[in-house]
């Protein structure tokens, strides 16, 4: 098992004819993802390798049964693309694009909630259920199938952690990079219960960082979960008021410091690791390996 996506997920790629879109669509296909359609307005009828391109999401969904979408279009069009995917009935929408106006994302976020769809991102690496399906730009070779769910606000740090787990012989059920923007579709809280209910997930690694209150919200959920959660918080050395690379990582109040987040997690019994290497060790321990 896995959460959100699996071997039956049918993916369309919005922006498949672009440089990034075609590259990552090919990678996904190579990984075994069922990429069933591309969507590029006014390029309907073209092909990207064997994948037919449609003018609209509606058409793509009707013709191919696509139920998930990856969006790799310019920031000024990305929110509209996400709304189109949601409107067409996609239940998983992975928004890779960076630099989408927050105000546009407010609408996309609430529309996704109304539709009961999982919106992942924006400004995220995507999601992978190793051996089954990948939607996103994650480097696929470092993942392996197994019992650990990973959810993270960071991209490369996630790769690092997954790589560490894989090298230690610990596979992953599903790995999700939720993205680094202030307004994101899926936060920690949204997937923790999914992991709890997934029979094949035996432990969850939660990779937080400074900024916002998502870790505190997650702690509230974790309180009531049986599944063990291993934590990590990046940015302990980050100075307040400075934006660390992306808009999400900025210490703007007491709650958004690394210390506050570590405390919130520890208070509900989550061991918070000091280093990336420690995550692998702690996970092993939690799994009884």
């Amino acid at each position, binding site marked *: 098992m896995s959460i959100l996506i699996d071997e039956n997920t049918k993916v369309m790629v919005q922006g498949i004819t672009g440089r990034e879109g075609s590259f990552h669509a090919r990678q996904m296909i190579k990984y075994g993802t069922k990429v069933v359609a591309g969507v590029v307005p006014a390029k309907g009828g073209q092909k990207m390798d064997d994948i037919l391109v449609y003018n609209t999401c509606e058409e793509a969904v009707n013709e191919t049964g696509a139920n998930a979408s990856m969006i790799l279009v310019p*920031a000024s069009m990305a929110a509209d693309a996400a709304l189109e995917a949601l409107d067409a009935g996609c239940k998983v929408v992975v928004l890779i694009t960076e630099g989408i*106006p927050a105000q546009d994302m407010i609408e996309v976020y609430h529309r996704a909630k109304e539709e009961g769809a999982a919106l992942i991102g924006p400004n995220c690496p995507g999601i992978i259920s190793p051996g089954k399906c990948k939607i996103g730009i994650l480097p696929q070779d470092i993942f392996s199938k197994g019992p650990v769910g990973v959810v993270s606000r960071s991209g490369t*740090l996630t790769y*690092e952690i997954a790589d560490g787990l894989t090298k230690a012989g610990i596979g992953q059920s599903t790995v999700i990079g939720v993205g680094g923007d*202030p307004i994101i579709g899926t936060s920690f809280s949204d997937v923790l219960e999914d992991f709890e209910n997934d029979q094949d997930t035996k432990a969850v690694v939660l990779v937080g960082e400074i900024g916002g209150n998502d870790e505190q919200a997650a702690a509230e959920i974790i309180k009531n979960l049986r599944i063990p959660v291993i934590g990590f918080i990046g940015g302990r050395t980050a100075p307040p008021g400075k934006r660390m690379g992306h808009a999400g990582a900025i210490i703007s109040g007491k709650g958004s410091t690394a210390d506050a987040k570590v405390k919130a997690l520890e208070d509900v019994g989550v061991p918070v690791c000091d*280093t990336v290497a420690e995550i692998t060790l702690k996970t092993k321990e939690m799994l009884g390996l």
Partner: protein
Amino acid sequence: MKIHEHHARDIFKKYGLPVPEAEVANNPEEVKNIARGMTPPVVVKAQVLVGGRGKAGGVKIAENHDDAMDKSKDIFGLLIKGLRVEKVLVAEAVDIENEYYLGILLDRDKKKHCVIASTAGGVDIEQVAEETPELIGKTWVDPAYGLHPFEIRNMLFDAGFDPKLALKVTGILMKLYKVVIENDCSLAEINPLVQAKDGTLWAIDAKVNFDDSSLYRHPELKPLKESEETDPIEKEAHARGIAYVRLEDGNVGVIGNGAGLVMATMDEVKRFGKGIAKPANFLDIGGGAQADLVRSALELVTMDQNVKVILINVFGGITRCDEVAKGILQAIEEVDLKVPIIIRLAGTNEKEGRELLIYSGLEKYLDIKNAPYKVIESLEQAAPIILETIGVPAQ
């Protein structure tokens, strides 16, 4: 993006918000000329992109235009939190009866705009929120239908605003909301909103931050952008488009790809540093960096004279390790880096990158103090080498 108070004031004025008569001056002579045309007293306010200018002596009341000129002489050139005062705003002073706080910001937890008002204005609102939360009114904006006067009224009545005043403030907040929506503001604040002795209301200070991702659709805002960086290296990084933040008291330059990985690397340096090795900066080369950018990043980090050693930690996804290696070699060739580099490469084209570095022959020396760089397998290996480098007294 932050903008100066006087620019925010101009935007407020355009939306019909009640801002006092005011004009910007670049020197004391201009202050005098502007103040001459106003009804005294006037207030002279330093224009800097940081808070706390009042305490720093950046705001002064003057009796007349000569006094304004004199007082402005103390303000021009003042250094407030590292930022030098180059402009002042000269405004007609208001006879203050009461002060209020009004603000609208993006609530990232609720994913909605939050409208905030308090009868405790003129002070730090976060402090009010902590000490007397009952004095803070909040209402969240329906993401679909937007904000309505009745929602604001309900909030203001609950927060203890006088009912008649609340009606006027409702109008002001509706306008402020329009500022936020039409300009993609992440924050718009009036602190204080002042009720003058004659009952009129005035937006005495104006603060507006914009969502950087939305600037592409507000070309008219771009000219308002001014450097927020007080640090010369941060300014330079900004100019080069590199995400760089300088840390105090650091001696280990940190470069990586992806904000999370860079922060984790900084944390790791701090942890194993035994109080001796400390991260000197945050530098994220982002995704898919080319050699040039890596070269430029190395150059930036070494502008900080405190940096004694650089740690590069890259996990390639979109970023290719061979491009990173090329950039490192370019930097060594073209820039006099002066400090050694500890390099950890993993992920996409890891092998190619490592081979480029190893076959360059530059790593041949036995001792890190003599070699320009050292390639390591995992981050754990960095600790002893960094400590060795730092531990040795510089020259």
